[in-house]
């Protein structure tokens, strides 16, 4: 099976380890992964802030990058939800404004083949045990777009429960938003920070070493808040946990440096 990785702009620029983990994980499961270089941002920041028309070139770009693939897999609940929920809206609005039906057709083609990573694993590959090893105490925060727009349900949890060595701790108030919300974080900083503080308090209260989500954008906010408070909890994307094995925990595949170094690869050495 051959799939295209939609890595997302945030992961491309700020969290390459997550993309590397997806590649490693899928290849280990016998999937051939391509990275169409024409891809860029899904357009969510523009769309959700009210700049719908500025999103349209990115919808077209998504189409050009992925039109030849049967499956597009992305390690982001909110970027997958952007494609699945909002591309059809963008297409319908363009059509209603008399600007043709091509965006509608593009959206109709993109929706059924775009999968968030845990959906792809559980629904398409039909695996819940990916052979991962991650000997740490982890708490899972279900991000809003994964939970409510995509309806991921217990897929991430089932995957985590099958990771050897991993102890999963319940996060109180798990379904409450962390307060990131894209541009909300800077347009309403007081409320966003208050929500983040409550989320982080709940995370720390679990006693977990790491907080895990299906979305690095939420983790920038949660992790940034944790780091500012000097809390010893690491933010980690679920792909990096699922990619970890007994072998990979011996040493990092990629040199990781800088102040936030250390998720995939270096995890094992923390023990």
């Amino acid at each position: 099976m051959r799939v295209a990785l939609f890595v997302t702009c945030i992961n491309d620029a700020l969290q390459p380890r997550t993309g590397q983990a997806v590649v490693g994980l899928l290849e280990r499961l016998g999937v051939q992964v391509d990275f169409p270089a024409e891809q860029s941002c899904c357009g969510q920041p523009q769309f959700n802030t009210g700049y719908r028309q500025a999103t349209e070139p990115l919808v077209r770009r998504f189409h050009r990058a992925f039109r030849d693939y049967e499956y597009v897999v992305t390690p982001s609940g909110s970027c997958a939800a952007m494609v699945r929920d909002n591309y059809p809206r963008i297409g319908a609005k363009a059509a209603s404004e008399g600007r043709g039906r091509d965006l509608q057709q593009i959206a109709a083609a993109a929706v059924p083949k775009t999968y968030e990573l845990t959906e792809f694993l559980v629904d398409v590959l039909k695996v819940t045990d990916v052979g991962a090893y991650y000997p740490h105490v982890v708490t899972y925060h279900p991000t809003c777009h994964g939970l409510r727009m995509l309806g991921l349900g217990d897929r991430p949890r089932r995957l985590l429960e099958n990771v050897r060595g991993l102890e999963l701790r319940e996060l109180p108030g798990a379904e409450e938003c962390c307060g990131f919300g894209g541009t909300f974080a800077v347009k309403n900083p007081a409320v966003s920070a208050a929500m983040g503080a409550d989320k982080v308090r709940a995370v720390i209260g679990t006693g977990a070493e790491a907080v895990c989500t299906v979305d690095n954008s939420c983790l920038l906010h949660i992790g940034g808040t944790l780091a500012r408070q000097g809390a010893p909890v690491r933010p980690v994307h679920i792909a990096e946990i699922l990619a970890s094995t007994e072998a990979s925990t011996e040493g990092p595949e990629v040199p990781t440096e800088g102040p936030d170094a250390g998720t995939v690869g270096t995890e094992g050495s923390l023990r």
Partner: protein
Amino acid sequence: MSGTYLGMPAFPRAAAASTRDTRLRANLTHATHTIRDKRARAVAELDDWARLRAAGAAIKDRMLRHLDHYLERLETAVTEAGGQVHWAADADEANRIVTRLVRETGETEVVKVKSMATQEIGLNEALAEAGIRAYETDLAELIVQLGNDLPSHILVPAIHRNRSEIRAIFRREMASWGRPAPEGLSDSPAELAEAARLHLREKFLTAKVGISGANFMVADTGTLVVVESEGNGRMCLTLPETLISVVGIEKTVPTWQDLEVFLQLLPRSSTAERMNPYTSTWTGTTDGDGPQTFHLVLLDNGRTDTLADTVGRQALRCIRCSACLNVCPVYERAGGHAYGSPYPGPIGAILTPQLRGTAGKLEASLPYASSLCGACYEVCPVAIDIPEVLVHLRERVVEGGPVTRGGVRTVLKPARGHAAERAAMRAAGWAFDHPGALRAGMRLAARTRRLHPRRLPGPGRAWSDTRELPAVPAESFRDWWQRTRGEEARDEAARGEGSAK
């Protein structure tokens, strides 16, 4: 907090102040979580909830599509049953009509049933200017009125107050409005309720005019419906000689049968009850029973304009249950007053900018008062996709576009104050559509990453005041892929294999 919403600051500023109010935060967290959990249990009892919800949305949508037809039918039915129907295009007209109707009775005091529509139009203030005193009879509305305060929740208007604050308000203010608070009043709920009961009983027994809203209006029969918990509504609807009901035109339902759906959806979503304690219905007037004069004031006040918007019109399905407030993490922390209207929380964030337009600073800020987490849509009993409407209204704010105001189709200009953001969004859009430039930018960021500040100046402080900035990695994913799996890497691997042979 004085009794007016005029001149309220934009949401972020008001919310920044209220999030620092630890007592308010504690009151709100306790109250919203209690109702939230009870609602979830009440809804879980019904195995056909999803179908009820879909039916509620469909009935409202159908009614809205044929609103003109159902309103005329309602007018005919109410008139035939002995009522008088008045049409109010806006708040001023509605206030003028009600003031005139009260004056015609010769009375200077009225009792009120809790009503969102009369809050929306500022009826009490308009009546006060005309020398007419309106007494709120819902317990929480009474607390708000005595405290010269504003409601901060649709269902529980005094949710921001705790028991000891209520006791203080009663002791300080009741005497100037009527029967004073009993000596030695404590802050036990039973004593507070008894004090309110004694205070209000006087009003019920002397008032000649009652003013209400309505939860539903049945077009077929001209029947109005009020659902409530305290029985004060029943008193106001039956004891006075004259009853004036001010109702938003979207409260219409076609038939009695439709109430079957809504009388299940509303109590469970609102108070988390299987059925509310009091459901009053009345059809015009009845000789020798209840008010002998009945006026229905049908209120538009921006609703027809809202109906003209194909995305935004779903807000008119709202049955004012307040479930969206109780699950909203933003409401829980900002409080209801920050929304600057009687409609706080997620529904207020989409209703107020549509009813009032987006020209004002507060109204333009409301569509952004959400992290788009979607909890509101999940609990809405009539399936209003609030995040969809929020994003739709954000576009109206920053890009302008076609809109209907006062029944006239116009094209809005983009709101002021978004020029820098618009430029940044366009620049980001351009960069994302030019991967070469984007890649160069990412490489530059990677090379200079040791020089990046830990805290940002200017607008960036909104992020870095409370959160660390993410560190820029040495290599982007794109570059890693190119280096390890790109064409050059493959060629190199192929050459390696060749030389080994």
